[in-house]
């Protein structure tokens, strides 16, 4: 499969990307004003105690040496010790990655489930009232900020009608899914509108295309014309849109995780920034960056899979 050979080659390009990301986050984090040792020990700490902590975490070394240590640790699968939690950052992230990952996965699946049928319904009834209704409703999804939408959903579906738990994260799978329902729905309601608009536009174009004329001319019923010819052709442009939005989501779960008290990476990041926990900020930023690169890589694979003309 020559067309897919990029799957083997592309990861080689990740190496310089990850290297660059590590350098940039390393420098940026250290440009934040404030001293982690001072934040850790409080306002009344003695200069000796602060110097001890700084020596213990290597903060008194020159920057370039700190960066080399960081790279050496990275090569050993460590990201350094968290100043606050006193465990390795990678292990710390390991305990927090699941809720964030699950939240993003559920949100994306949910928005696809919302967007595809509605886009199909709107496109096939282009210009009729149902099309207008769907497009009108979708402007709300774009217009309402997610934090407000999240609060409203919480009020409605957790407080007034207690179908879903208010906040937090569960232990068993079912419990976890129940806790993820509202935050996922919040994200999906805004994400699906973006998808819906792009899908509908593509479907409307393809419904008028020569391909559909030809399919109708050989007597194919509308359902075959739509699901077998229009839909597969309409997906391609939305894949990259989705990838860009997931990239944005990875950094943007912070707000949603805070509202629903999900113990994910967004929460971890916010706390780490406040406590100047350099190693954690650095680690989370790197994981986010790698995840974004990975999502785009998956999007490339998906694009090649749906459109045989694309070569990467």
């Amino acid at each position, binding site marked *: 499969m020559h067309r897919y050979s990029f799957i083997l080659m592309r990861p*080689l390009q990740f190496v310089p990307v990850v290297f660059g990301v590590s350098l940039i986050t390393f420098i940026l984090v250290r440009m934040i004003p404030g001293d982690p040792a001072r934040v850790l020990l409080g306002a009344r700490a003695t200069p000796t105690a602060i110097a001890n902590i700084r020596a213990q975490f290597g903060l008194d070394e020159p920057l370039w040496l700190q960066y080399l240590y960081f790279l050496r640790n990275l090569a050993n699968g460590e990201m350094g010790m968290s100043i606050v939690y006193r465990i390795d950052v990678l292990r710390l992230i390991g305990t927090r990655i699941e809720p964030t990952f699950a939240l993003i996965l559920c949100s994306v699946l949910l928005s696809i489930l919302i967007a595809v049928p509605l886009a199909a319904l709107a496109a096939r009834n282009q210009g009729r009232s149902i099309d207008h209704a769907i497009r009108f409703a979708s402007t709300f999804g774009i217009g309402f900020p997610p934090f407000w939408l999240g609060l409203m959903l919480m009020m409605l579906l957790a407080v007034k009608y207690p179908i879903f738990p208010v906040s937090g994260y569960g232990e068993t799978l079912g419990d976890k899914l129940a806790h993820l329902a509202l935050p996922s729905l919040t994200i999906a309601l805004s994400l699906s509108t973006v998808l819906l608009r792009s899908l509908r536009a593509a479907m409307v174009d393809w419904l008028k295309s020569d391909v559909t004329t030809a*399919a109708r001319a050989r007597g*194919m019923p509308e359902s075959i014309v739509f699901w077998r010819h229009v839909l597969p052709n309409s997906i391609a442009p939305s894949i990259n849109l989705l990838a860009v939005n997931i990239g944005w989501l990875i950094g943007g779960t912070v707000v949603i995780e805070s509202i629903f008290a999900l113990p994910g990476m967004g929460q971890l990041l916010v706390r780490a920034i406040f406590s100047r926990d350099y190693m954690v900020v650095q680690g989370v930023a790197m994981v986010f960056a790698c995840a974004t690169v990975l999502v785009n890589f998956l999007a490339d694979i998906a694009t090649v899979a749906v459109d045989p003309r694309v070569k990467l």
Partner: protein
Amino acid sequence: MSAPLLSVRDLSVVVRNGEGEQTLLDRVSLDLAPGDILGLVGESGSGKSLLCRSLVQLLPSRAISVTRGEVWMGGRDLLALGDAQIQAVRGAEIGMIFQNPSSHLDPVMRVGDQIVEGLRFHRKLNRAAAQEEAIALMGQVGFTDPARQFAAYPHEFSGGMRQRAMIAVALSCDPKVLIADEPTTALDVTIQAQILRLLMELRERRGLSIILITHDLGVVAQTCDRIAVMRQGRVVEVGDKRDILARPQHRYTKALISSHPSMPTDEANDVVDDKVDAARLPAGPARPLVEIDDLHIRYPLSGGVFGRRRSFSAVAGVSLQIRAGETVGIVGESGSGKSTLARAMLGLIPISDGHVTFDGASLRLQREATLTKMRQQAAMVFQDPFNSLNPRLTIGQTLAEVLRVQGKVAPAAIPKRVDELLRLVELDPDYAGRRPRQLSGGQCQRAGIARALAVDPRLIVADECVAALDVTIQAQIVALFQRLVRTMDLTLVFIAHDLAIVRNLCERVVVMHHGRIVEEGPCAEVFERPREAYTAALIAAIPDIDPDRRLLAPPGLLAS
């Protein structure tokens, strides 16, 4: 004539827009006999395609509707059928193929699966049987390795093979009538000949009746039994092919026949004396205006990190001299490198190897100086008149822009010069205020020529500039070029895949194949006595308007 298989009676179609109704088809009546090929001829906008789509209720817009008439087939009126019933007619009884197979085939579906779709739906075959039948069908329409090509996607095929795939898709539903809507317009002459031969063969083998929509009377003369001529939504003339071609009654049919750029017959050739031809060649200055020496243009094919670098030679070692005042035609099939050569000639694409010299200045040695000189003395006319004009500018603005940049005309004199230019290309000066969208294709191309003339050039390179136009318009544009070349001191390089037009317009012809010049010489000589088999095959593939001059090209030559 036996009882018609399909009979159209008094069909009228209108479009309703803001201002009211406009008649698109006006009481059209036609008959198609079993096993017949009916040629439907007329210009774009005459309603040929609409007529055929109306037969199966496939109207292109909700605003368009049938107001009266009947379409009888198999003892019932197709226009009276409901949605489900007409769906069973589409494809299964009346199949269609289209002008542009690239856009009518599903790009993300394997070619074989598109054939299987029809077989499964209309003939209710199971997956395995349908696949077997699809492979057999692909073989019938001329795929060389159907079992392997089954799994290929449309973009992996050439234009001719895509049209074959389109035909196989249409045949998969086993129709009695095949409507072929300009099936060969987008193809090279040699490929056109193959596709037409395939259609004739299918008619013989499957007893198919065909409605062939075309604007090329040559195609009709070669393939059809009967002709219907359409103009402005009406059938103005209908009858046996030979009757109509020999004794056209309607004024419009006569105009169509006279504007067909057919090759002169043998008797006509005798009139063109070789000596006269040779004498007509300009003695010219010693130094040619354009000199091309061992020109190579290569494009990189694959450039992976570890992949071997390969390249494709679009132009492979071409040497050509063009003297001032000459009219040179460059012909060849698509992919032969003629457009690449033209672009390289004007410094529009980088040269890989060799030299292009314009009026003594070498594009390689003094690039900047030569380009400046070229931009002041040479201009190009493009294939697509709409897309090569800026849609946001009026024609006047487009022309004025060129005049301003060139600086040869004083700013105050620009409006006057714009008027002059428009008159020169036989457009009313009022058109200066219009935008490309408000013009017809022919008018747009005139504007494109006016833009080239605005440079006040010594050299014009016209790249397939009539390929997108109707025949009657083609003839007008060619006449315009003839007049311009005669009255102005112009050198013209005219690129076309249509040999007949080049024959009419040019003094010298250059035949290209696979990036090389295979033959060149005075037009009359090359066309009468081609030295190369390839040139002979190209000439033989032109459908002549005389039905007795058969498409002779032996298949072996075309495949090379």
